[in-house]
C-alpha cells in the first residue's frame, strides 16, 4: 500500500490530469475525479473542524465541505486572489471541494512521461503522490487526491530536509 509505483501501475497512471498551482509548484489530479470548478464564493466557516477545513458551500442544494490544500499541505497561507478557486472532486463517493491558487490546464500524460516520485529523493513524501508527470519540459506532481482527503491529518508533502524518517503527516 505504501508503494505507489509498481510495474502494473505504470499504465494506470497515464491519462488526463487537471493541473493547478499551489505556491510555486504545479500539481495534477486525475480528470475523472474532478466534478467541476467553482469560483471562491460563499464559504461558511464551520466551528470545531480541523484548520484546513475552510468550511462548507452550497453546491446546487447540497452542502459540501471545502478543504484548503495549502493548509492541508502545511504550506504558507496566502491571500485569496481572483484566480483562487475551488475544484470539486469526488473522493470515496463524497463530493469535496479543494481550494487551490489557480487552475492551469488539462494535460494528457502518457505512460512514458510518468515517473515515480522517489526521483525527488527524500524531500518528498511519496505516499500521497501517484507519480511525477514530465510533459513539455514541465514537471507536475500527480496527486492521489482521495488519499490526501481521506486522512484527517495535515499532510506533510515535503519533508523537512533534516528529517529522513518516514512520517505520514503526523503533526
Amino acid at each position: 500500500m505504501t508503494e505507489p509505483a509498481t510495474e502494473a501501475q505504470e499504465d494506470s497512471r497515464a491519462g488526463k490530469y487537471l493541473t493547478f498551482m499551489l505556491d510555486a509548484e504545479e500539481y495534477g489530479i486525475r480528470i475523472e475525479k474532478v466534478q467541476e470548478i467553482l469560483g471562491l464564493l460563499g464559504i461558511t466557516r464551520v466551528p470545531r473542524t480541523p484548520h484546513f477545513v475552510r468550511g462548507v458551500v452550497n453546491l446546487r442544494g447540497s452542502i459540501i465541505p471545502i478543504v484548503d490544500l495549502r493548509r492541508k499541505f502545511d504550506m504558507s497561507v496566502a491571500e485569496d486572489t481572483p484566480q483562487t478557486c475551488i475544484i470539486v472532486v469526488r473522493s470515496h463517493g463524497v463530493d469535496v471541494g479543494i481550494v487551490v491558487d489557480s487552475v492551469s490546464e488539462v494535460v494528457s500524460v502518457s505512460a512514458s512521461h510518468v515517473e515515480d516520485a522517489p526521483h525527488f529523493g527524500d524531500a518528498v513524501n511519496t505516499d500521497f503522490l501517484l507519480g511525477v508527470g514530465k510533459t513539455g519540459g514541465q514537471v507536475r506532481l500527480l496527486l492521489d487526491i482521495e488519499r490526501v482527503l481521506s486522512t484527517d491529518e495535515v499532510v506533510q508533502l515535503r519533508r523537512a530536509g533534516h528529517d529522513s524518517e518516514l512520517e505520514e503527516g503526523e503533526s
Partner: protein
Amino acid sequence: MPRFSTDCTGDGQSLLRNGADTAMTIEEIVSLLVQLEPEDRDELEEVVSALELQAEERKADGSGPAVPALLKSAATKLRTVLAPDGAAHGPMLISAAARLVRAATESDRAAEESPESTPDSAATSESTPPPAAEAARDSESPDEDGVSDSSDEPADPPDAEASSDEPFIQVEPGDELVEEFVGEVREYCEGAEGALLELEENPEDREAIDTVFRAFHTVKGVAAMVELDAVSKFAHLAEHLLDRMRSGKIRCVGGYADLALQSSDMLKELGEAVSAALRGEKAEAPEGYYQLRSILEDPEAHGVGAHARSGLSDGRSQPARAARPKKATSAEDGQWIRMRSERLDQLIDMVGELVIAHAMVREDAAIAKGGREAQRKVTHVSKIVRELQDLSMGLRMVPFRATFKKLQRVVRDVAQRQGKSVEFVTVGDDTEIDRNMVESLADPLIHMVRNSVDHGVETPERREERGKHPIGRVQIAAYNSGGNVVVELSDDGGGLDRNRLVDKAVKNGVITADRARTITDAEAFQLVFEAGLSTAEKVSDVSGRGVGMDVVRSNVAALGGRIDIASELGEGTTFTINLPLTLAITDGMLVRVGQERYLIPTTDIQSSLRPEPSMLTTVSSRGELLTLRGAPIPLFRLSRLFEVEGAIDDSSQALAVVVGDGEGQCALLVDELLDQQQVVIKSLGDGIGTILGLSGGAILADGRVGLIVDTAGLLTLARQTPAVTA
C-alpha cells in the same frame, strides 16, 4: 398522422368514405394508430369512420363475425378517447385499439390460409375484446352476468379457464402499459380496502360501496385492455359481488364483507404476480385463487352469507343475477397522479435553486436603482416564489391517514383470528409527516399494533373477569409537539409485567442480577426491545412474523426518534414514539455573531432580550449568569463556543436568546437577530461529520450555507468548554 395527413389532407373523410378499401386498409390503420396521440382528434375521427366502414364491409362480405366485432370494438375504444374525459386513458386506449385491429388482420389472414377454420375461434383465442368504453369511463353500466355488454363482441364466459399449458399470466417483460396497470391495481385495491373497512362500521354506506365497485370495475376494464384475462375475469366476479351489494340484494356484512376484502387482497396479489411476470419471472396463480374464484362465482353455494363467515350456509340462497345498476356517481379519475419520487425531489431542489436565484436578483443593486416600478415587479415575483416554495415543501408531506388505514386492517385481522373484539381508534390522522419517514415507520407500527392486539388486549372472557368492557380498545394518535411528531399507541390490555420482563432478561443474560435489583420501571419496559425477549405467554401465529421489537426500536432510532413506554399492569400500555422533523422543514431564527450567521430553531427559542447590566453576574465556578425573572440561568457566548472573532464583547450591547426549558434552559449571546426563515435541514455531509452543537446546515436565501444550532448539544459543549474568566 405523418403518412395519413400527407396522403389525404383536408377532405380525408370523403376520400375514405368513397373508397375505404383502397384509401385505408386495415394494415394502414394499424400503422397509423401506433403514431397517433390522443390530441390528434381529426385523425382519430377519421380512423373511427374507416374502422366502422371496414366493419360494415366485412360483415357484408360474409367473412364471419369475428373481424367486424374486433374492428367495431376498436372503433368504440377510439370513440372513448374522443369523449370529453377520455384523454386521460388515451394512449392506453389507442394502443389497445391498435392491438384489436391487429388481431383482426391476423384473424383475417388465418381465415385466408385455412378457409375451413372458423374465424370465431381465431378471434377468441387471440384477444378478448373488453367491454371497451367502460375501461376509461366509470359512468358506463357494467356488464350483466359476465357477458360483454355489446352483443357483437365475442363473449368470454367467466368460467372459461385459461388453457392449462399457457402460463397463468402472459406479458411482455417490461411492457410499460402493463407496468402502469400494476400501479393502478395497487392504488385501486388500497382505495377499495379502505372503503371496505368503512363498510364494516356502516354496511349501508352507499359511497363506500360505490368506491369499491368502481375500483373492481376499473381494474377489470384496464386488465382486459392489457389482455390480462385471469385478472379481468377475477375482477369481473368481484365486481359482480359488489354490484349485488349496490343493488341492495345483499348487505356488506359477515361472509360477504370478508369475501369482498379477500377479493380486494387477491386482486392485489394478482397485481404482484403480473409485476413478477414483468420482471421475467414465472407467474403462478396466487394461492387460493381458483378457490376464491369459484366461491365468487356462487357465494351462497359455498355457504357464504350475510351471517355465515365461511363454510356454513344460512340457508338463504340468493340468485346470482343482479339488476342493472344505476349509473355510478362521477368518477374520481384525475384527482391523483402517480410520479417518480426522484422527480419530486428534483422539483423541490429546483424550487430551492429558484428561491436562491431570485433572492440574488432581489438584492441586486440594479433593482434598487431601478426605481419603484422595478421593485414592485420584483416584489410580485417574490410573493409567487414564496408560495411556490411553500407548496413544494408541502409536496413531500403526507398525512398519517393511509398508514392508519393499514393498521386498522391489521387490528381487524389479528383480532378476528384470535377471537378478540377490538375497537381501533385513530386520532389526528391528518397530522403530516415527511413521506420518506412514513415509509420507514409503517413496518414498525404494523408490528407494534399487531403486538398490542395479540399480547396486549385480553380475550373477552378474561376482560370480563377483570371487570373490563369485553371489547378491547387500541388507539393510535399522531400530533405535533414542539417541532416533533409524536405517534402514540395505547391499548387497554393487560399491560407489561415488569417483574417477568426483568426475570426473563436476567435468565437470557441480557442484564445481570445486580442490575435487575436497581432497574427502574422505565428501564425495565425498555427491555421489550431486546432481541429474543418476548413477553407473550404463548407464541401465536401472529407473533414472530415480520420485524421484532428490536428492529422496531432500531428503525425508529434510524429516523432519529425515540420510543418511550408507559405501562400499568392490568390497565394497559402506551408506546410513545417521538420523531424529530429532521427530514422535514424547520423554522429558524437567523442570528449574527461577528461575521458569521447561525440558525436557531424557532421552537427552541423562549424569548430574546437585551440584557441590562444589572441582570448579569459572573460566578467564577459557573461562568456568566443571566438573571431572568428572578432566576439565574447560564449565559453562553456563541462567539466563544464557536470561536468566532469580531463579535460584540459587551454583553449589554448584545442580545440574549433564551432557549430550552427546565434543566436545559440557557441564554445564548448573539450580536443581532436577522430574520426568521423556513429552511430544510440538511446534513453537513460525510466530509464534515457531526459537530457538537450543530444539527446540520441549510441553504439560506442568499445561497450560502447557514449552520443550524443544536441547543441541547450546545449545552453539552458549553459544559466541556472551560468557564470564562471574568
